[in-house]
């Protein structure tokens, strides 16, 4: 008997759609209990166009080949002491931030997609989510391996998962993803696949990967290239998700619009960490944050929202505000990190004269007027041996959990104060966007685990800040959180390079 070899299309159909079944004696709603509570109406799951037609056998084969090459490069990087080829030891702090802030998000993405990959009634959406779930888990592993070499030579890279769960500024990315994962499956996809992966991901990956390339970090660059084909699939899924939901029922439009507004703003706040990485932390700069925002959000996103207008979707609320903030946030965030440098698991520093001139050139409207005076004051104090630190703990935004460091649209010397009262309790926010998100679902955000408040409640050890850092955060105090210029990282670097 001869068996006919199936073509790819037939194979895909048999291995995905044909594995689904109808429910004859069980209630379908009980099988998919998360499908309706968000109010999204799906009329016909068969209209789902699978964005990538890949079966598991071809997926494994393709990924295995890719990763074989990737690990060969990691090995070569380690054997050749690749860390000695980076531009400047300050660069490694970007790796530290990535490993503690972003890599654990890949893990949360894996968990989130595994969950929704069970919950959708349509098999096409389930398969796509399951496939992405596996991608995300692979990304965690390959990122950890790519960066593990640095852990042998530099401080601050020893406990990324532990730190992600506890350290004050890492509650920002952590709570972002927990918000998405605690939502229903449709909101999760609009949040992560569309708003983050499709609209904003270029602002995360391009800066980090180009930053790695510009600064001689071949391990991270190679991971970036390897992940690129996965990211392209994820973006395609993001677009399919949004079009599918909008085409299913007109009642879905206002719900989706609300989610786009929310997740644009949450993504914008999360990416402020990337802004400071681009403008302050990369020794060799790729482009300014403002330029990146203009290219990847204003131009790219502008075209996308023009395309979505036919469904009645408008550009995200507060996207106009981001056009003003793009000239400020990187400066505000690095100032925050510098003045809290005793409590960061990476090293901080004052920009050099050359770097300040670059910032003046890139931010002609704002840097010299509002930000240079801070750095010059900080430098005078350092020279006198009076390094300036923030005297206590900062007020946090109840929604994004970032210290309230952002300023009014028309006055960069005024903190933006916003607040709401709910069931007799008072809540503070950094912006109108974050206040709106709280006001829409206060019962969710009253549960925020705000690091400053938890410290005050005595839930993070103490009572001294140094106890919290050493015992609760597991910092190697004096090394992980040192000033760059006096750090052990810098001393070792000078030894390796044979400079005084």
């Amino acid at each position: 008997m001869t068996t006919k070899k199936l073509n790819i299309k037939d194979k895909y159909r048999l291995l995905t759609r044909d594995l689904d079944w109808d429910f004859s004696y069980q209630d379908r709603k009980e099988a998919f209990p998360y499908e309706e509570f968000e109010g999204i109406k799906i009329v016909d799951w068969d209209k789902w166009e699978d964005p990538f037609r890949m079966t598991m056998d071809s997926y494994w084969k393709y990924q295995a080949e890719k990763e074989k090459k990737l690990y060969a490069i990691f090995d070569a990087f380690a054997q050749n002491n690749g860390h000695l080829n980076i531009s400047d030891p300050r660069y490694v702090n970007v790796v530290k931030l990535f490993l503690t802030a972003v890599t654990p998000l890949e893990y949360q993405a894996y968990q989130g997609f595994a969950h929704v990959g069970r919950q959708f009634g349509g098999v096409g959406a389930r398969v796509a989510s399951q496939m992405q779930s596996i991608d995300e888990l692979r990304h965690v592993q390959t990122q950890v391996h790519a960066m593990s070499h640095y852990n042998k030579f530099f401080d601050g890279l020893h406990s990324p998962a532990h730190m992600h769960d506890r350290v004050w500024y890492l509650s920002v990315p952590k709570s972002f993803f927990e918000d998405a994962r605690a939502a229903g499956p449709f909101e999760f996809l609009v949040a992560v696949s569309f708003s983050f992966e499709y609209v904003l991901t270029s602002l995360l990956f391009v800066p980090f990967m180009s930053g790695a390339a510009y600064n001689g970090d071949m391990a991270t660059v190679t991971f970036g290239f390897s992940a690129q084909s996965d990211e392209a699939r994820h973006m395609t899924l993001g677009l399919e998700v949004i079009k599918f939901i909008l085409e299913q029922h007109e009642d879905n439009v206002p719900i989706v619009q609300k989610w786009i507004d929310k997740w644009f703003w949450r993504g914008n706040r999360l990416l402020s960490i990337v802004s400071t990485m681009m403008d302050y932390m990369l020794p060799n700069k790729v482009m300014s944050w403002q330029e990146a925002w203009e290219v990847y959000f204003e131009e790219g996103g502008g075209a996308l929202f023009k395309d979505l207008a036919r469904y009645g979707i408008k550009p995200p609320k507060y996207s106009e505000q981001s056009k003003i903030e793009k000239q400020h946030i990187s400066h505000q965030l690095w100032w925050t990190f510098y003045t809290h440098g005793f409590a960061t698991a990476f090293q901080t520093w004052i920009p050099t004269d050359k770097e300040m001139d670059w910032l003046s050139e890139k931010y002609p409207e704002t840097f010299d007027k509002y930000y240079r005076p801070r750095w010059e004051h900080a430098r005078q104090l350092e020279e006198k041996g009076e390094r300036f630190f923030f005297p206590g703990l900062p007020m946090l935004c109840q929604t994004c959990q970032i210290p309230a460091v952002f300023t009014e649209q028309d006055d960069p010397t005024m903190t933006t104060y916003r607040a709401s009262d709910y069931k007799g309790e008072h809540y503070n926010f950094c912006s109108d966007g974050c206040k709106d998100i709280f006001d829409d679902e206060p019962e969710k955000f009253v549960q925020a685990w705000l690091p400053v408040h938890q410290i005050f409640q005595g839930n993070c050890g103490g009572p001294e800040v140094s106890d919290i850092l050493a015992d609760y955060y597991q910092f190697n105090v004096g090394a992980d959180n040192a000033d760059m210029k006096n750090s052990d990282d810098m001393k070792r670097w000078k030894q390796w390079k044979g400079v005084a």
Partner: protein
Amino acid sequence: MAVKPLHEGYIGEVKDRVENYGGNYIVHIGWDHHMLYAAPQALVLSPDLPFAEFLHKVMPESFGAHPDFATIDWPSVQWKVDGTAFEPVPEKTLKELGVGHKSVIRFDTPGAMGIGNAGV
């Protein structure tokens, strides 16, 4: 609706209830146009703290490092709690002056525009 829940009647746990702070309040303090301090400061204070003590003990610890602090003309300072102006009375307590748990106290020092007049 206060949240979109899977099951009716969902209620979230309020993590920062005033009861969790042993009789104290979290109080935030911000100095307008003085961005040397990246954010308003969060402190744990007694609601029964007299304003005089707040002014003479808490404020110098929180803001004394700023070069403008020593030259503040206190009678001209404008105070706000949660956006509403108030007149400080030395012997009144924070609570009596309208400060609640997680309130924001702001002060504006007319004429002092920070380091280099840049709002720093």
